């Protein structure tokens, strides 16, 4: 036995009887028992192994390198914009998504005449109430925009699992954005897509409304418009919260209204924050129009009396109570029917 040979005595495999007579002394003097290695131990352990069908386990002595990030903000969506995938998505959108959206949401589309003659690409900036918003909006876009539009989607929600990322990229042409902070990569990607001729759907609120009222707009849409010079089309979605609210588990049929506003561009010298506020105001006017009429909404806007998207700054129950009343609630009007109603449970979903 060479001196160096004591450092790597074989240890028994699990379930193998040790040889008590050999006592202690595995790895050097301080280590455990010198034990016998038996062939049955090898066989039994090899039998339990699923490698190479399953991924290999890592030896304990080998530090794992940091995993290569390819999800979240780092997910590569370029494959979803290749022609065969676009073709498949167009077939899906026109033959599955659109009929389903019309079946469930019965969308009434207003203001799409504002888009006539508008040269793309454009940025559709919409309020956000429900997961239904994206497929509904995509399926209701005029045909010349519909199949050339990408959607900015939350990296932490739609791209946190491989299957979700693949599905979002394929079905919605989504790409990841970081909604918690300004992220250079997602900003660059969005700008590149606009410059490549892709229209962009973005929800400047950064997430679905938790209670039916709107949230303050982030500056992403305004920034991209300022950077690329592409116009922003304000969009207001009304009624989708009743189909599938945040935290809701089942779909309910209801009527919805999609209102497109006049495309706007940043004024000379207008910074992104001010422009973002202007986009928010434009969507608020559209919201007002959805519950009143165009003329009323315009006059209120002229007087500076357009109701704010965020609703009153009061206790949650009073905000719920003050939600605009819809008289076209789902089915038998159980959620509407001309009465103020408590919003359905706001869950923990995003």
């Amino acid at each position: 036995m060479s001196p160096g040979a004591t450092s790597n005595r074989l240890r028994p495999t699990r379930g193998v009887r040790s040889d008590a007579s050999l006592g202690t002394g595995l790895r050097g003097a301080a280590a455990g028992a010198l034990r016998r290695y038996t062939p049955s131990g090898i066989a039994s352990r090899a039998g339990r192994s699923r490698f190479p069908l399953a991924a290999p386990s890592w030896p304990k002595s080998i530090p794992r390198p940091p995993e290569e990030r390819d999800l979240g903000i780092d997910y590569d969506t370029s494959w979803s914009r290749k022609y065969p995938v676009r073709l498949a998505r167009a077939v899906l959108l026109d033959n599955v998504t659109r009929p389903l959206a019309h079946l469930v949401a019965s969308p009434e589309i207003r203001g799409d005449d504002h888009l006539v003659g508008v040269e793309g690409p454009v940025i559709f900036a919409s309020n956000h109430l429900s997961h239904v918003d994206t497929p509904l909006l995509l399926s209701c876009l005029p045909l010349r925009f519909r199949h050339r539009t990408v959607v900015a989607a939350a990296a932490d929600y739609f791209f946190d699992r491989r299957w979700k990322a693949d599905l979002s990229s394929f079905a919605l042409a989504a790409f990841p954005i970081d909604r918690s902070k300004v992220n250079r990569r997602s900003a660059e990607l969005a700008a590149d897509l606009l410059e490549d001729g892709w229209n962009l759907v973005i929800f400047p609120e950064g997430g679905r409304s938790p209670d039916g009222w709107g949230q303050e707009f982030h500056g992403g849409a305004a920034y991209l418009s300022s950077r690329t010079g592409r116009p922003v089309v304000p969009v207001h979605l009304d009624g989708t919260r009743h189909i599938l609210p945040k935290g809701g588990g089942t779909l309910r049929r209801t009527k919805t209204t999609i209102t497109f506003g006049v495309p706007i561009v940043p004024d000379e010298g207008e910074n992104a924050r001010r422009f973002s506020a202007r986009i928010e105001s434009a969507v608020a006017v559209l919201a007002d129009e959805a519950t009143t009429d165009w003329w009323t909404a315009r006059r209120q806007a002229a007087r500076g009396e357009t109701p704010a998207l965020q609703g009153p700054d009061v206790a949650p129950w009073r905000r719920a109570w003050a939600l605009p009343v819809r008289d076209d609630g789902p089915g038998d009007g159980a959620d509407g029917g001309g009465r103020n109603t408590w919003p359905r449970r706001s869950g923990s979903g995003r």
Partner: protein
Amino acid sequence: MSPRPGFVLDVDRSTPPTLFWHGERFRLERLPEGSRVIYAPEPVEALSDPSTAIRHALLHPLGDKDPLPALLRPGMRLTIAFDDISLPLPPMERPDIRQLVIEQVLDLAAAAGVDDVELIVALALHRRMTEAELRHALGDRIYDAFAPNGLLSQHDAEDADALTYIGQTDHGEDVEINRRAAESDLLVYVNINLVAMDGGHKSVATGLSSYRSLRHHHNPETMQKSRSFMDQHRSELHTSNWRMGRLIAESGIDIFQIETNLNTDTFPSQFAFLQKREWEWSARDRFSFLGVSKVLDRTPSKVARNIFHTVKAPHRMTAVQAGEVEAVHAVTTQNVWDQQGVVVEGQTDILTMGLPYISPYNVNSILNPILVACLGLGYFFNLYRNKPLVREGGVLIMSHPTAWEFNPVHHPSYIDFFEQVLSETTDPGELSKHYEEAYATDPWYVHLYRTGHAYHGVHPFYMWYWCAHALQHLGAVIVVGGDPAAVRRLGFRPASTMADALELAKDVVGPSPTLTHLHAPPILMADVQ
């Protein structure tokens, strides 16, 4: 990112099964906890512009040597000798490194107005290369320019008229080399270094010599004193070659040595799993492995062998140096160690290894049982510096089918050696004393060597001598999954599974052995502390 160095893994419960070559197949073996697995360093990055590097080496020689253009002049005799089919392994993708180097040498020779140029394959007692193999090594341009005019020849160690006796070393060793090389004004030797054993004075003193010379160092005594072949400072084989090489230099033969280093990128991407550490196998690697191994398991050995022999290695040049033999070889050897060295603490009781389908002596041929022994005991066992990986009296376990199968065209004398000699004795000294001379001078083997594609009659003896150091050192050799009759003929013990082999090994080394596995490819050199 720079390549990761090699290292020694301590096997624990979480360690996945370890990949073993098994001839034309693979085995996954779960090694017992506490075993060690030696993983090779990752292949180093290749030269981005080999042509420029070659030109630089030729113009900036090492040692006491003028740049190549200064050695070339009109009217001179120039001979270019180069390594044969035994290197690299597997044969590399085109263009072969020999082609790259020789084309540049010929460019310079043409520019200098040298008319008398001949190329010689330095094959010693190896088989002659086929036209296809020569075309692969040299490229069509060189082959078509030289072969039709008889200016591309293969060294014939049995052609007395084509040999020149140089003299005897101070140890009484006869030195006899190729006449054309000896009588040239300049001999350019183009070498490929895959392991530390290759190159140096061994290139000419062995590659262009005859049986009369080779017998002085290709014998059991020399081999047993070579510890190991990969450490030229402790290798009697190299010491003898160095004595011969210096005598050749003193005789006035002007040698311009060109040595090249290759990286250890040994197999193409479809076999990427072979060079990876098992726990780093991606899904693609795992399914490649499953696909390849399942197909091979259902493929007849002959077909599987033919498939593997079509594989060309993506080896790339990592360094090239030229000039005086010893100065060049010192750099080349250091490059090899820098690339392939792995520090290993202490010896082991049991050394395991999986043997592939190929060795230097069966390119496009069968790895017969004698070559299996040579590959395991001669080559893999000797991949060390300082001390053998396995302790004296330890056990070597090799995994290989070891079929009783020979290529009669390439290895005719191997068949008789296996049938007649090994059935009598496996002792290298005994068989050297009683049988070597008869095989070396057998006219039929000489005829096949000179006119066909047969290894010399004495070659199987040399293969057995390569094993001499290991046979002397080891307590037992066990072959897992081999043909029991063939394995026993070699004097080894057959075992059907690794578990059985370990049980057998414990009879030799005791009940609680240490085990180390040599994981290859890529190739590695163990620096045993």
